[in-house]
């Protein structure tokens, strides 16, 4: 009976996750142009990928993106959640924070593409009216990745803040009362009570947003297409290019498999460091 109830999920998992994953692994061992039949070539793809400077560049670009995106998103979300938790519990405010998250990613990217355009964008007009030079947010290689990271921080920070907020609501109110009686200020309360007791949620949110952040694709595809040169060619975009522009599905599958390995290791380290399975709330 139990099996019957989990069957829908199990079937879905099998068809949409397990089978494609196995197929992807098989492709990574082949020379497969997508147009002709795959041809087994052993580990050749793996050797080539590891020697491909573009692969390492795209990994570095992705790491930079993840660092800025997850870093800024987590800090801002924590602050917002703490404010919601300690200052106001207005439902209107919470909903407003969530609005950017409700906008489709492609729309978000297009809106910012227009706002930040060097010649016609509103933001650059403001910058120029202050007597400064226009900034090529998407065209200057040192700005592209920070720009795209912060756009997605803008889009996701409300959602992350809401998760933290839900976590904070689980922290027993009496710990805060005890802290208040002991004369702890807001900052001390945050660092000594909220943060440590939030740790399991923090770990979960970090792992989920890290994995999500590694999957950055749509904003890049809409705004810079990996450019200028290769300054924003993140790993997902490079995988996509190899598979569907260069018709090298085998090579693309190899990079995808390597990405799974890297993400697996990162997740393991994170969970270990944050001791996610232990909670201090008894």
């Amino acid at each position, binding site marked *: 009976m139990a099996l*019957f*109830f989990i*069957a*829908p999920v199990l*079937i*879905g998992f099998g*068809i949409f996750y397990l089978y494609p994953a196995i197929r992807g692994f098989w492709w990574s061992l082949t020379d497969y*142009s*997508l*147009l*002709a039949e795959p041809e087994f070539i052993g580990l050749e793809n793996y050797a080539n990928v590891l020697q491909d400077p573009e692969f390492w560049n795209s990994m570095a670009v992705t790491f930079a993106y993840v660092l800025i995106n997850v870093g800024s998103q987590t800090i801002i979300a924590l602050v917002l959640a703490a404010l919601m938790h300690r200052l106001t519990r207005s439902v209107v405010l919470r909903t407003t924070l969530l609005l950017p998250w409700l906008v489709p990613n492609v729309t978000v990217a297009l809106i910012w*593409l227009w706002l930040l*355009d*060097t*010649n*016609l964008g509103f933001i650059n007009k403001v910058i120029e009216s202050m007597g400064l*030079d*226009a*900034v*090529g947010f*998407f*065209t*200057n*290689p040192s700005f592209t990745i920070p720009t795209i990271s912060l756009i997605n921080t803008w889009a996701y920070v409300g959602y992350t803040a809401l998760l933290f907020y839900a976590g904070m609501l689980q922290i027993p109110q009496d710990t805060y009362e005890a802290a208040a009686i002991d004369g702890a200020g807001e900052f001390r309360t945050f660092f000594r009570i909220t943060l440590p007791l939030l740790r399991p949620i923090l770990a979960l949110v970090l792992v989920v947003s890290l994995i999500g952040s590694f999957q950055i694709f749509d904003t890049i595809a809409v*705004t*810079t297409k990996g*450019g*200028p*040169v*290769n300054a924003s060619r993140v790993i997902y975009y490079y995988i996509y*290019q190899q598979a*569907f*522009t*260069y*018709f090298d599905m085998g090579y693309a599958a190899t990079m995808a498999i390597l990405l799974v390995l890297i993400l697996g290791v990162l997740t393991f380290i994170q969970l270990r460091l944050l001791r996610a399975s232990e909670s201090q709330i008894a």
Partner: protein
Amino acid sequence: MKRNTALRLAGITTAGIVLAMTAGCSAAGGDDGGAVTLDYWLWDDAQLPAYQQCADEFTEANPDIQVEITQYGWGEYWTNLATQIAAGSAPDVWVNQASYYPQFVADKQIEDLQPFLDEDDSAVDFDAYVPGLSDIWVVDGARYGLPKDWDTIGLVVNKQAIADAGLDEASLQDLTWNPDDGGTFEEAIAKLTVDQAGRHGDDPAFDKDNVAVYGFLPEWADGSAGQNLWGNLAQSNGFTYSDVNPFGTEFNFDSPELVETIDWISSLQAKGYAPPFDQQSTLSRLEVLQSGAGAMTSMGSFNQLMFKDVAADYVFAALPTGPEGRKSAINGLSDAMYAGGEHKDQAWEWIKYLASGDCQSVVGETGVIFPADTAASEASVAARAELGLDASVFLSYSEEEDGTFLIPISYNGAEMNQIVQDAIQSVALGTAEAEAALTDANAKVNALFE
């Protein structure tokens, strides 16, 4: 209890969806009796009405063959096509482009049309086409498409900017260029550039850090052909892409003629005549031109109709004459037949009709593109003239000997595009020297063919 029902329902729905999906696959394959429906794909929505008319007329003449046209934007077109080919259900006939077709040939996904031609040798009048277009699609005696349309490159200049610069419109039709001082082309660009104080680029007091109108908007995202700008200038400076074209295997992207050309285009930024690469708009050059932030740019004949509502404000001119003459890239399209298709004879009839003067003149009369058929091309020029757009410059290159050159057609085209474009953009950005970047890129390109 309620929850149980919901779960069961979910299970049944999932099973239903899976069944429906498998059923959908088998239903698509069947057809009834003699009537055949051909799938035809194209990417340009502006051409859709004309080809729909062709399809209707074709079905009128061949009642047993229906044609169903599907249009995808350029961005999705090739990915969708690849996925459909991988699934074995690609359209019977699709519009093919010169730099994409070698991959389909290499993977044996498109049909050789020569056997059909041999059986039906009066089917196509090759003399009716603009010279050079039909050979693009021939590989080792096999023919992978019949010519559909073609395009060349010209200059578009804002008339008001010409007047402000004190230039003569007629003089722009006959510019000269060289990589050393840029010739009269650079002089015109300088005059068209205006700084925020209203001084022109040739004024010694010109402030290159505060430019209001850029004299020229270069295209830097231009693949391995430089079809929209650098390829034309480099060719007029004596550059050739490869040992042979089509299907070259040894490339010359490190040649001094190309290095000089890229250096010259890049130098326009330093002089304040072109927007710095890292501060250019993410919008297309033509949009920037129409916004008034630029005075002149190069563009393909396929984009001319973008100016139909502002025809009186712009003038079209031929590319400048370089040390080796005036040269424009020529690119062509064709219709390809899917090798895995079920109705090849009917597909051949459709392809033949698409390549005929009948269908091409329908398309030509809309003025959207230049059909491969010479008479239909002239009809297209006439249609544009009625809109106030002078298209004669795009045709002028074929009057001169070697006035046009073919964009590179070879295997590994997509990788090549990225490698060369990255190298040229790094020069534009100032992060690399042209010679070093292009030598490196050329080595990578040649390594693709080892």
